[in-house]
């Protein structure tokens, strides 16, 4: 059983590595389509993309193990060396041969070990961050009565959402004093949208899912995901206050309140710029039918897997890798 688990892990790891390499190649082609999706849909697609290596690994393991498990229940015997008269290929349940490429295990072990270390490092960092996060939340709670919006008693401008499972809107006195009534309404509507969507939890999921991607891909994915998340909250705020330009102006007013002042270098390509430009240019109109898209992808995957050439090539490749 233990060796079976090892084989599954190896297959999943090969699948994850393949997905990690394929994502940047596919991403170039799909980037334009994804960028035209409405922000909330785009955020969902990008969150799934963050988890693609893991999903790819699990899917790969399921595809490879499927015929072997079917043979265990005598549903199918074409893939197992112990099956009667089988013209078999690779079977993950009855391993007949040793590894043909011994260093393959070494590489897979190194990648797997590296991933475990990366995960442990990020968990420790997260724990440290979470303590600071809790300290700020405690100070906000102490500064507020039973209001829905927590107030930080500081002149420092701040507006955000704190809390993973039960997120709360937190504003600072310093920021509220700078805003007009309509601008404060925009900020509260925007942050309430984050609460309703549980965006801090989604950010955390994206951050951990994206750990399996190559660093450059990870950075782009997380940036695009954060942008989509912010734009989804902007859209919700715009529909609540009934004016997109007021939302854009509020973003600028809050950005101007930021105490970190520099020259001309930092702004280009920033989230503020992209959010304001999107609000000024109007809502995204392209809508892809999610169900239809997923159905088409499943059909393509099934067709590819059903093709004997593809299926047996995949098994032969894995046999040489896994024995």
């Amino acid at each position: 059983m233990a060796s079976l688990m090892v084989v599954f892990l190896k297959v999943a790891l090969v699948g994850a590595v393949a997905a990690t390499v394929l994502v940047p190649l596919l991403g170039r082609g799909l980037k334009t389509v994804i960028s035209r999706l409405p922000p909330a849909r785009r955020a969902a697609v990008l969150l799934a993309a963050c988890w693609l290596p893991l999903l790819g690994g699990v899917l790969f393991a399921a595809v490879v193990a499927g015929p072997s498990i079917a043979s265990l229940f005598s549903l199918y015997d074409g893939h197992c060396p112990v099956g009667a008269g089988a013209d078999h290929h690779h079977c993950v349940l009855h391993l007949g041969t040793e590894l043909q490429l011994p260093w393959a295990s070494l590489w897979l072990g190194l990648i797997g070990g590296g991933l475990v270390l990366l995960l442990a490092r990020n968990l420790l960092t997260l724990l440290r961050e979470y303590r600071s996060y809790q300290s700020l939340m405690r100070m906000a709670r102490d500064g507020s009565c039973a209001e829905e919006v927590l107030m930080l008693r500081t002149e420092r401008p701040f507006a955000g959402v704190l809390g993973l499972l039960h997120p709360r809107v937190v504003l600072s006195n310093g920021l509220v004093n700078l805003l007009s009534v309509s601008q404060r309404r925009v900020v509260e509507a925007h942050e309430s949208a984050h609460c309703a969507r549980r965006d801090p939890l989604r950010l955390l999921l994206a951050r951990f899912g994206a750990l399996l991607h190559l660093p450059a891909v990870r950075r782009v994915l997380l940036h695009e995901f954060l942008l989509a998340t912010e734009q989804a909250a902007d859209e919700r705020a715009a529909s609540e206050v009934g004016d997109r330009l007021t939302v854009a102006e509020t973003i600028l007013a809050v950005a101007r309140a930021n105490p970190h002042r520099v020259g001309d270098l930092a702004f280009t390509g920033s989230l503020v710029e992209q959010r304001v430009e999107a609000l000024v240019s109007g809502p995204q109109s392209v809508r892809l039918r999610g169900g239809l898209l997923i159905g088409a992808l499943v059909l393509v995957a099934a067709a590819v897997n059903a093709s004997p050439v593809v299926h047996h090539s995949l098994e032969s490749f894995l046999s040489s890798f896994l024995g």
Partner: protein
Amino acid sequence: MNHGTIQLGKLEHAVLEELWEHGANHAKGVHARLGVQRGITHNTVQSTLERLYRKALLSRTKEGHAYVYRPALEREAFLARLIDQVTHPLAESLPEESLLSAFVDFAAERDEQGLDRLQALIERKRRANSTGRDSE
């Protein structure tokens, strides 16, 4: 002394708030105000003050036989540091790696020219919208 990230427990936070509100005090004084009310011992208050001192959040001077503790940072400066830490937890981290959904990236550097350009863009759009409405 530790000048790193700020991490406070509930009691540490309560002790700091007490010192911000009522000023410098020794362990006995803090215990009289806070410990009795919370049902905690003098030793617990003493060790909390010691921990806060080691975290560089309190300074202390010896007066007679006892240390008098005072906040090393004003409440405002402490909160500013905490906000910075939460918005950008690590020096090398990206805003998208924070757990926080902030209205804007409060730790990012601000560019006046970029903001002016965007303001002009919004004003142009407003004018275009009102001209469109007038001509209808």
